């Protein structure tokens, strides 16, 4: 009896986990089935559960006008966005941890507010500004404007990771003759690497999925994947098969990233706990 009780106790977490995974993955599963069905099967009522998968939707999606270009645009925006966020965020996080930075709290609160403001607030002023300085419809411009949320997020997260690194490490390095730049680069960055990786992943997901700003500040050259997917909605009809296939394609890089980096994320987000 006691063994069956303990078995039930151990079973519950699995039941909960399975339900949670099923609920959160169901939409993706549904989209995947549409992407793999022929046009006939896709909207059959009642739904067809057994069908022979077809791949033509994926081919049509990838070769659709602008889609592959948008895919690479998004990759580049993520890359530049992360480089910018880290280049400014690492030094900022390091200094904002120091006791003697005046106005430290204010700066941190302002960053948090900037992170929380809704994206559409930036659209009108930035549209005008970007038009006039030539950043409209460029990937650089997008990567720059995305800093309004990636940079505060990066600073806040890295600051927490850096705070777990004992000050004495920096002091020991300083006694050996290391300057601030070297201390950050040879001590803080490598020790916080899992945290930095987690930050990059979370930033990438956010930038990859961003729609509002991209819609307003790009037109054609710099279109991103979210816009490209929306583009399958024609005037008269929607190519559900290709749109679903495109959705799956754009989920893939992030899913791959998440799977590859999952250990890093967990490690990073629990950096303090394992110290």
């Amino acid at each position, binding site marked *: 009896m006691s063994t069956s009780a303990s078995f039930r106790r151990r079973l519950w977490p699995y039941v909960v986990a399975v339900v949670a995974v099923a609920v959160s993955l169901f939409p993706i599963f549904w989209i995947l089935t549409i992407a793999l069905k022929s046009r006939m099967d896709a909207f059959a009522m009642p739904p067809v559960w057994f069908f022979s998968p077809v791949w033509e939707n994926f081919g049509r999606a990838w070769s659709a006008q602008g889609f592959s270009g948008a895919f690479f645009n998004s990759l580049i925006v993520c890359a530049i966005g992360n480089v910018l966020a880290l280049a400014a965020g690492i030094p900022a996080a390091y200094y904002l941890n120091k006791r003697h930075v005046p106005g430290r709290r204010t700066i941190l609160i302002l960053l948090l507010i900037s992170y929380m403001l809704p994206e559409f607030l930036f659209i009108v002023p930035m549209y005008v500004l970007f038009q006039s300085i030539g950043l409209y419809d460029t990937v650089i411009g997008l990567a720059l404007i995305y800093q309004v949320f990636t940079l505060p997020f990066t600073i806040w997260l890295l600051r927490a990771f850096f705070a777990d690194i004992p000050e004495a490490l920096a002091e020991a390095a300083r006694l050996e003759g290391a300057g601030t730049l070297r201390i950050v680069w040879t*001590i803080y960055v490598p*020790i916080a690497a899992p945290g930095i990786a987690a930050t990059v992943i979370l930033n990438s997901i956010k930038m990859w999925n961003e729609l509002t700003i991209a819609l307003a500040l790009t037109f054609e050259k710099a279109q991103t994947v979210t816009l490209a997917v929306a583009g399958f909605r024609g005037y008269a009809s929607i190519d559900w098969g290709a749109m679903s296939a495109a959705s799956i394609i754009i989920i893939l890089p992030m899913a791959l990233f998440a799977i590859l980096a999952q250990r890093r994320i967990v490690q990073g987000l629990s950096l303090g706990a394992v110290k």
Partner: protein
Amino acid sequence: MSAVSLQGIDISYGSVDVVRNLDLDIKSGEFVVFVGPSGCGKSTTLRLIAGLEEGRSGEISIGGRVVNEIDPAKRDVAMVFQNYALFPHMSVADNISFGMRLRGEAKEKIAASVADVARMVGLQDHLHKRPGALSGGQRQRVALARAIVRKPAVFLFDEPLSNLDAEFRAAMRYELSRLHRELGSTMIYVTHDQVEAMTMGDRIAVLAPLKQAGRSNLMQFGTPEEVYHRPANLFVAKFIGSPPMNLFEVRMENGEVRLGSVSLRIGGSIPAALTVGIRPEHVLINVGEGPSIDATVEGMENLGHEKLWFLATGIGRVVARTQDNVQHITGEKVSLRFPGERLHLFDSATGERMPEDSLVRGKG
């Protein structure tokens, strides 16, 4: 020439003073221990010498050179931190050679130095490991090796043994003393543990928190013998020695003070209130002749090699330390005698030790 000299050092954090009026001259090759209760400014002072902390005023010299404005890395000091401050992402060898690599020294020279130092502290089999894979004692050695490899004029230790268990601490105490003899360098060692201070220090600087101190934190700077046998004030008398010195506050009457039934004659200029002290090992139980103090045995702690007796008297609780073969039973009436030459006299108001000739005739 003094290896380290502090003149009129004041340190504060914001508006809070932590160290005041600190003057200290440390001789070349000396092992000096800063000892005092937690929060008295020991670490702060050590960090000031290293250059990690700035004073409000005063002059710091190392090897005859004023270093107030000199970068920490150029002060010719190496520091061993309380929590070791090892770089967790580097191997033991890389931890030890961090500074040499930074200064761009030749690979062969680095390898030779690392091997030398590793042998010295017994780490030769662990050079490729990360600090996380080492025991506390081994981490301690890495921190030590990282300091030794710099060949500094002055070593600074901030409670380096406080994270080790007792058994290991004793062994490391001995090793550090051996290292000091071998290297002949000046060492400054911070601890709150008076056993470490007494066993390791050539000289001991006893520091007090400012709110208990007078014009300076420095309560006494002397050899272990001086600090133990001639404490300069009540603070040192209470802080050094375990169990602590027995202290009795007494009043003057006609040039005499009465300690129970015993009277002491005091000469010189006499303060209104005196504190008389005697160490537990100097209290005699049922030994000797003449005036004595009646006491009742309240309890005993047997430490194996010695016994501690807790005695109730008319002047208060007295602790006595005897050899292990002394026998008394709880409740037994005994008589205590305090040899005059073993008494310490302090001015109760200032806490300062009275001149040695104050005690004209100690009876009993």
